[in-house]
């Protein structure tokens, strides 16, 4: 069967890893925020802002890596805004997050239009080219799948390990996780819940924006309005799927991206006569099923969504 044959192509798996990249950054970012007890529904808008910021930086003459940094900075600013509302003022995390999403998405289109008012076809930049890691890229199969990717993809894979290490092995990671479980426990040990949560939301939002920048600086070479296309919401589902664990987040994003890559390939094969919408739907069906199966046993951070007020319990 053609479908099964696809699974044995290294090209398919390389595409899977590539397509997982923006989701991976977004999921890690959301995971960091939620581990500290703050839901960040601003993710969709922050990714859009990252898309636009990274692309604009490069289009106006910056180089690619500083473009990524600039996107991260813009994401961090949105994160700070979210933190001020939800952490310091204790407002509803849902409402604020949705507001940030609308602001991020609308502001990025608006700024794009302001900067380039007379353009009909989106202008292009020269994006990241895949790099071959010496030696490792010569390993059969694995080398092609993992070590001939865009440098941003490799950065994402490194980020999984880094985030997992920080959460599990460092005092700062312990304080972060404890804040999401019981802020009073952190406060009573002389740490500041406000500072920890703000830092987590700022860093997490920077991750999200880098995920957005991958779309314009690596996956494509231009900025389109609406190009994030729901990836942010998928990341939120993937965090639940992953039970707030970076390793499982990698697995989840890969499975989702595999369905996405699969639907693209199956669509190209004329032999399979199903409406293309069916294939488009597959990754989303997967995420719904996965959520139903996984969320029953997921151990969510206990203080998620609960604003911390000093002196109250």
């Amino acid at each position: 069967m053609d479908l099964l044959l696809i699974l044995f192509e290294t090209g398919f798996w390389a595409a899977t890893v590539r397509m997982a990249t923006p989701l991976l950054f977004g999921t890690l970012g959301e995971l960091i925020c939620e581990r500290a007890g703050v839901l960040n529904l601003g993710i969709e808008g922050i990714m859009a802002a990252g898309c636009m910021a990274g692309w604009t930086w490069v289009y106006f003459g910056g180089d690619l890596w500083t473009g990524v940094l600039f996107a991260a900075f813009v994401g961090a600013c949105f994160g700070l805004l979210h933190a001020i509302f939800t952490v310091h003022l204790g407002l509803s995390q849902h409402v604020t997050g949705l507001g940030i999403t609308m602001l991020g998405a609308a502001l990025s289109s608006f700024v794009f239009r302001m900067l380039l008012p007379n353009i009909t076809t989106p202008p292009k930049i020269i994006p990241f080219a895949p790099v071959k890691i010496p030696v490792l890229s010569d390993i059969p199969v694995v080398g092609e799948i993992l070590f001939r990717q865009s440098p941003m993809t490799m950065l994402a894979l490194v980020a999984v390990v880094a985030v997992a290490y920080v959460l599990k092995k460092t005092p700062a990671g312990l304080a972060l996780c404890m804040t999401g479980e019981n802020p009073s426990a952190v406060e009573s040990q002389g740490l500041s819940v406000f500072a920890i949560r703000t830092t987590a939301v700022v860093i997490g939002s920077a991750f999200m924006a880098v995920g957005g920048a991958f779309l314009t600086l690596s996956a494509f070479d231009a900025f389109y309005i609406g190009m994030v296309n729901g990836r942010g919401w998928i990341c939120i589902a993937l965090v639940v799927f992953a039970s707030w664990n970076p390793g499982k987040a990698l697995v989840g994003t890969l499975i989702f991206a595999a369905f996405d890559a699969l639907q693209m390939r199956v669509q190209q094969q004329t032999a399979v006569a199903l409406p293309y919408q069916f294939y488009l739907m597959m990754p989303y069906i997967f995420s719904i099923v996965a959520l139903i199966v996984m969320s029953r046993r997921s151990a969510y951070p206990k203080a998620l969504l609960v604003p911390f007020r000093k002196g109250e319990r």
Partner: protein
Amino acid sequence: MGEATPLLSLRGITKRFGALVANDDIDLDLQRGEMLALLGENGAGKTTLMNILFGHYTADEGSIEIDGAPLPPGSPKAALGAGLGMVHQHFTLADNMSVVDNIMVGVEPLTRFRRNTAAAVAKIRALAERYEMDVSPYSLVKHLSVGQRQRVEILKALYRHTRILILDEPTAVLTPQESDHLFATLRLLVDQGLAIIFITHKLREVMAASDRCLVLRHGKVVFACRTATTSSEQLARRMVGGELPEVRRIAATPGDPLLELGGLSAENDHGYQLLDHLDLTVNAGEIVGIAGVSGNGQSQLADLVSGMIADFSGTFMLAGAPIEKPSPRQMVRRGVGRIPEDRTATGLIGDMTVLENLALESYWKRGFNRLGFLAAVPLRQRTAELLGRFDIRCAGADAPVRTMSGGNMQKLILARVLAERPILIVANQPTWGLDVGATAFVHQRLIEASREGAGVLLISEDLDELFAIADTIQVMYQGTLSPPIDPARTNAAEIGLAMSGQRDISQAMISARD
């Protein structure tokens, strides 16, 4: 005293909140190796004083010295650094994390690249062994008993080289045996040179465990002495500021059975057996006390009788009529009054007004609504009458309930229940967190209601309360109830053992109810 520099010394601490003086010129000295009991009613200023000590508040006047060195005000970090440790009444532990994680958090600098868990575990083991506390560093907090959690809190303080340990109502959640264990541990710590302050309003503990005591009232130190030179009666009078409100016991004359549960079982959604073939009879005119450590099915028993559990097996009779599919409204209609264990969560709606909260269980009754609209005049009259009759202090009928004190909230719930003249009252922890005066008020009202013919099911973790007002006591353990016991024929130690499941209630203790 006065021969050595005190370890902790407060001088002239004053703290005002607007017009209210929460702490008024408080002096306090604490020596090494001394256990001080801090007593006072709710609102006496104990919590404010501790918050000032820990830097959560800054005092308007006065100074704090630790070991002769002044403590910078308003800095929790400085307080921890100077060797102050606190065990809160509500534990500040993360349930989903391990003991060692809970103890380590915030101790190592956040910029360190790697946690040294192995060293921490070794240190915790050494501390646990030295102070005879049995806690395994790797177990998750959610798998620990309440007593063990408290030990983790104490370890948390010791791990940071605490020299002054403060415990806020440490025995509120413990069985008598666990309390004894706690005080044995504290005595061990004091013998090693620690200084301990414990906040409480259980006089028995003060007399048994403390070296010295200090009574606060309206923000002032009204009494300070060596424990050996005083008596619990004297302390109680100082706390209340006069004679103790006395609860008059009236002999019970049980009437017909009101509530009869036979072989009753109920599970939760996960198939976990919460009530396990339980038998219970409450007669008219008597108070049946249910003792037990929380989590043994008491809340489910209360929920069942107030109509919040619809799925059960066994027989459930109220005033001789079987109940098949109970609902809260139906139980209210049939005359069940509910005093829930958590007044702010399931008793009252904080953002709604006093009037609305008082009407919650009766607004649909005849007289309080016309054609589906609330009848304002009768509701106002009723509210005014109840506020007066139950001596509820609040800013008025239209004040939101969340602005009231705990004692007044409880009086409000009591008023709501008793105004309907219920035939059966389910009171779950009705005096939790209340001071001596408010507790006596609640007890008196429950006794009066029962002597006028209502049945009272009193669920409490406070054995003193059960011995004070219950006519018979049954112990709840893992969803089952012991046979009724006559309080006059047993003691707290026996009940305590049954509460921890270590002893069946022996036949000798069973009352001659039949």
